[in-house]
């Protein structure tokens, strides 16, 4: 079920009414309702893959309980290994099996050896990368004795499948979200209103900014050779806003919906396009994933301790793994590598913590923001392109500076209007976020006039007819 679908328009109020009116003050019943609603929400897409979630939930629930019972190091390692193998095994099979087989065959082909590789017709279960990481955080935290396992299977299953963030995050830590299932939730007006505002803001980003940008981005990235340098430059910027609108829009809606049910999810985006360097960008972009990698991969590897060479190794590992997490394609790996390379000078010069969010903005920062945004946009080309060769064609054609014509955008009235609307939408998004950055806010805030204006914008400018999936569903 998509947040921007009409089914969800019926689903959400129904669950809300049952939750606050029928099961009011019944914590267990509310958790069961959330679990059932979450299974329905996920099963709406493909009920067969519910079995994977249930299996993953059951394994980690059992592992959690067993970890509590034993202090024996080898047994604890074995249990953790079981959880890692089961979860990463499922993720690896569904997401990476074909990639590894094909890469193996291609690698031998480069030295003239022809091999037969068997690829399978595998459907990637929606959200598998997200809920796998979420359940892993649970077992790892218990293994590290930073978290007590839950005795309630319902609470744990509801935590794993919590529908607002099930398919595209934010990837919650068990230590943050799970305890919220134990406590009685009290309806709070301010929290609920903030939730509604976030839903509206997220919806604006998704259906007005992202989906309208997609109209131009898709044909440009399908065949970059057919477009002028000017069109490719605009296409690249449009994709930057598409992916941001799409993913952060989803996160805002997820956080907003959670607030309606009395839950607080972690902030996933802090206005990343106002970052002054790549390090700051990663402190502001997909925060739940970058902090997950920091806590469960980077720090166990040694983090920023040790020699520069050791630190560099860790940084490269983290960015490459992060790229690979996004998809089984060399384009994502190269995207991660590119970010690692952009991070490199900051690490070598010890400048990676220069631009912290708390630091005020000066005029020089405008230049830094522009530069960082440009670099991020170039890296997005690899992220969006269907293949490495298409990404390289895109950048080659872009850098040829052959023509700055924007014919594609202005070739007829409908395109021109849509183009102007998209630019207007991007403008509204950027101005609002600049305002919030200057106010040192972490989350958006809308007064009633803005709420009304955005709702009208969603109706007037939103793209509903060609309803598009959220991009991050594929990860």
């Amino acid at each position, binding site marked *: 079920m998509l947040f921007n679908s009409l089914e969800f328009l019926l689903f959400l109020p129904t669950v809300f009414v049952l939750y606050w009116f029928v099961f009011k003050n019944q914590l267990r019943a509310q958790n069961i309702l959330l679990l059932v609603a979450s299974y329905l929400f996920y099963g709406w897409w493909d009920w067969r893959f519910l079995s994977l979630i249930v299996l993953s939930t059951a394994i980690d629930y059992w592992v959690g309980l067993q970890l509590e019972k034993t202090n024996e190091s080898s047994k604890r390692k074995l249990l953790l290994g079981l959880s890692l193998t089961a979860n990463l095994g499922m993720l690896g099979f569904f997401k990476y099996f074909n990639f590894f087989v094909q890469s193996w065959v291609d690698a031998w082909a480069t030295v003239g050896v022809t091999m037969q590789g068997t690829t399978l017709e595998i459907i990637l279960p929606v959200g598998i990368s997200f809920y796998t990481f979420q359940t892993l955080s649970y077992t790892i935290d218990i293994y590290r004795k930073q978290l007590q396992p839950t005795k309630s299977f319902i609470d744990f299953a509801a935590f794993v499948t919590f529908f607002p963030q099930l398919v595209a995050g934010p990837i919650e830590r068990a230590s943050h979200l799970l305890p919220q299932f134990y406590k009685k939730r009290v*309806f709070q007006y301010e929290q609920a209103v903030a939730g509604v505002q976030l839903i509206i803001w997220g919806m604006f980003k998704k259906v007005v900014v992202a989906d309208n940008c997609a109209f131009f981005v898709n044909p440009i990235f399908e065949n970059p050779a057919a477009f002028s340098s000017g069109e490719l430059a605009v296409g690249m910027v449009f994709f930057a806003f598409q992916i941001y609108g799409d993913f952060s829009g989803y996160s805002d809606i997820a956080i907003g919906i959670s607030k309606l049910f009395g839950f607080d999810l972690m902030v996933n985006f802090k206005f990343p396009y106002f970052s002054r360097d790549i390090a700051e960008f990663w402190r502001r972009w997909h925060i739940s994933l970058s902090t997950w990698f920091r806590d469960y991969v980077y720090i166990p590897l040694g983090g920023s301790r040790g020699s520069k060479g050791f630190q560099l190794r860790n940084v490269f590992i983290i960015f490459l793994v992060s790229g690979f997490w996004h998809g089984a394609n060399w384009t994502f790996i190269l995207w991660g590598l590119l970010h690692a390379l952009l991070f490199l000078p900051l690490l070598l010069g010890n400048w990676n913590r220069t631009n912290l969010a708390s630091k005020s903005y000066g005029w020089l920062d405008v230049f830094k923001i522009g530069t960082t945004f440009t670099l991020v946009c170039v890296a997005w080309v690899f992220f969006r392109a269907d293949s490495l060769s298409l990404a390289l064609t895109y950048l080659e054609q872009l850098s040829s500076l052959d023509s700055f014509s924007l014919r594609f955008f202005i070739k007829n009235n409908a395109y021109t209007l849509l183009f102007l609307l998209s630019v207007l939408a991007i403008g509204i998004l950027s101005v609002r976020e600049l305002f919030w950055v200057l106010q040192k806010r972490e989350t958006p805030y809308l007064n009633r006039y803005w709420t*009304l204006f955005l709702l009208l914008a969603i*109706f*007037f400018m939103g793209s*509903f*007819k060609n309803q598009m999936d959220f991009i991050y569903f594929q990860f």
Partner: protein
Amino acid sequence: MFKFIKYVLLILVLIYFFLTVFQFFSDKGYKKSSNTVFQDWSNILEGNVNADLLIVGSSRAYFGYDPIVFEDKLHCKSFNLGYSAAGYDLQIEKLKMYLKRNKKPKYIIQNVDLAFFNEDKLIPNENELIPFLNDSLVKNLLSKYNKNYNFINRIPLLKYNKRFNQLMDGLQSNFDNNHLSKQYFTSSGYHPVDLNFKIDQNNLTRLKKIKAKDLKFEDKIDELIKYYKDQFNSDTSIYFVWAPEHHERLKKEYQIEKELIFDYLYQKLENEKSIVFINLCVDPISFNDDNFFDTFHFNRKGANKFSHKLVEYLINESIN
């Protein structure tokens, strides 16, 4: 909780109000845009047409029969109910919608052509109907082809989603309708086209592949005759007309399939008193490119010539 519900309701009421106002004025603009296809639909749905002579058919009817000519010569109110790009089902659907709100005509001219036998998989020119989606007849018609139309009109303005130009045109039409695209202009339902002939090679190539048998023309003709006989009594005279075809389409390779349809029509209507088949497929009009804008459609000049010719024919052969 009460305060929150009040907050949500306030947002919903305000947004509903704004959207309803915009939709109301846009729909209103279309309804009053004179001499357009929108006003034609409005008149049909509001029962303001009530013509004595009705022309039914596909784009060949829509572009090819000038009701003013019929009106002048026959002295009866005439209206062109042609539906561009529509096959049998949609042509009859439009007629049914018309008859639900307007009086029965004295004469019906049913244009028959190869397009008549096409299956209607999509609703053509959907945007013509969007301003009237709140009308149950239109909603029922559209929802047969797209189930979403069952609920789209429940949320104001949703029907104009991704049709921003159309919404703005509707709003602007409250003040003047000259800004509307020429493609929407009509005269009693007829759309004259002022274009010179240009050969439509793609259509001719496609036509080569059409076999009369594949069109299941017998079933559709039987159905059509049955419909007219059930629906109308002897007070209404019905004419099935095959209008002149462009000479390119009269070549043997195309004509052979049409002959099968003609034969069947003659055979079925042989003993029918209330339905007459007028076959003008091969006519002097056919052999002058100046009368067509492509091989399937008359331009204004051709439509005028043909309409005069058909009127004369009706006066001489049938009506008198």
